[in-house]
């Protein structure tokens, strides 16, 4: 391997030069799809272009992306539990108070980001990530999902985002329209419903990814 290190560097340098040439030869001024998006904004139900693209114009991407999140979680659960680091001590008073203050604030901020996503930067992914961080914080201070919530309630929460998105996507079908083709009059409400469920599902999925095992499993070795 060591003898070929210079060859590898040379090839990667060539790749970098080629990619750089390709990027620099692109036109200096380009609007991309921005005029198309702005032209259709009045039909999207929201006023923020990125949210309109995420949940209306490119709804397929977002729907499948949430399925990818679930797949990653299934992958981790099928590993059968990860080795536990070490028995955790009780959180000290500082950490306990910090968590008691920070977790509600994080939940409020997640709600704010979700709400503001309709007209300004924000939305389901950012809100879900903040919610996931709140879940990670709780786990770090020794909190574990109660036994009775770990079975069906957890699973239903995890799939709720994809399920509600699919239902909303299928709603236009009986009216003779296409999958994910919302009525512009109701698009705003539908997007908010989809985003609300997606936020909770993304947050819980990210927190479960951090936990690293199916909580209904018997304690891993």
């Amino acid at each position, binding site marked *: 391997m060591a003898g070929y*290190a210079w060859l*590898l*560097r040379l090839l*990667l*340098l060539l*790749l*970098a030069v080629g*990619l*750089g040439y390709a*990027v*620099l030869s*692109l*036109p*200096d*001024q*380009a*609007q*991309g*799809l*921005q005029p198309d*998006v702005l032209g259709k904004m009045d039909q999207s139900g929201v006023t923020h*272009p*990125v949210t*309109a*693209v*995420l949940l209306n114009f*490119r709804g397929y*991407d*977002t729907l499948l*992306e949430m399925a*990818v*999140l679930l797949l*990653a*979680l299934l*992958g*981790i659960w099928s*590993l059968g539990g*990860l*080795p536990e680091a070490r028995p955790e001590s009780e959180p000290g008073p500082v950490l306990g108070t910090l968590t008691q203050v920070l977790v509600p604030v994080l939940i409020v901020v997640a709600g704010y980001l979700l709400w503001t996503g309709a007209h300004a930067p924000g*939305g389901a*992914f*950012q809100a*879900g*990530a903040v919610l996931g961080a709140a879940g990670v914080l709780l786990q770090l201070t020794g909190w574990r999902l109660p036994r009775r919530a770990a079975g069906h309630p957890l699973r239903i929460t995890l799939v709720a985002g994809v399920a509600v998105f699919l239902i909303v996507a299928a709603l236009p079908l009986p009216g003779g329209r296409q999958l994910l083709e919302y009525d512009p009059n109701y698009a705003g409400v539908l997007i908010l419903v989809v985003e609300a469920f997606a936020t909770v599902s*993304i947050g819980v*999925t*990210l927190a479960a*990814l*951090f936990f*690293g095992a199916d909580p209904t499993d018997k304690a891993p070795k």
Partner: protein
Amino acid sequence: MSVPFLYALVGIGLFCLGFHGLIVYDHLLRKILAINIMGSGVFLVLVALAKRGGEAAPDPVPHAMVITGIVVAVSATALALGLMLKVQAATGHAVLPGKSRD
């Protein structure tokens, strides 16, 4: 040459740096970091090229793609870390089988 192109070139640099690290280093955690850095480079190129409109607002489509990309990247990282821990539990070393242990 303008600001977006500066960032696009940095993105290409990050991609190639990450690619180099992915090939050269044997420890799996380092490979995971390298893949993340490669992904960040790709995101940087996408977002930089979206801003070529000058004074106009940037193209929102690449932004939406990058946001989903960031969330997918973190979930893939979590899965990769889990697999790495399983490799370590099975072989005692967090390197790919058949690799030298350095």
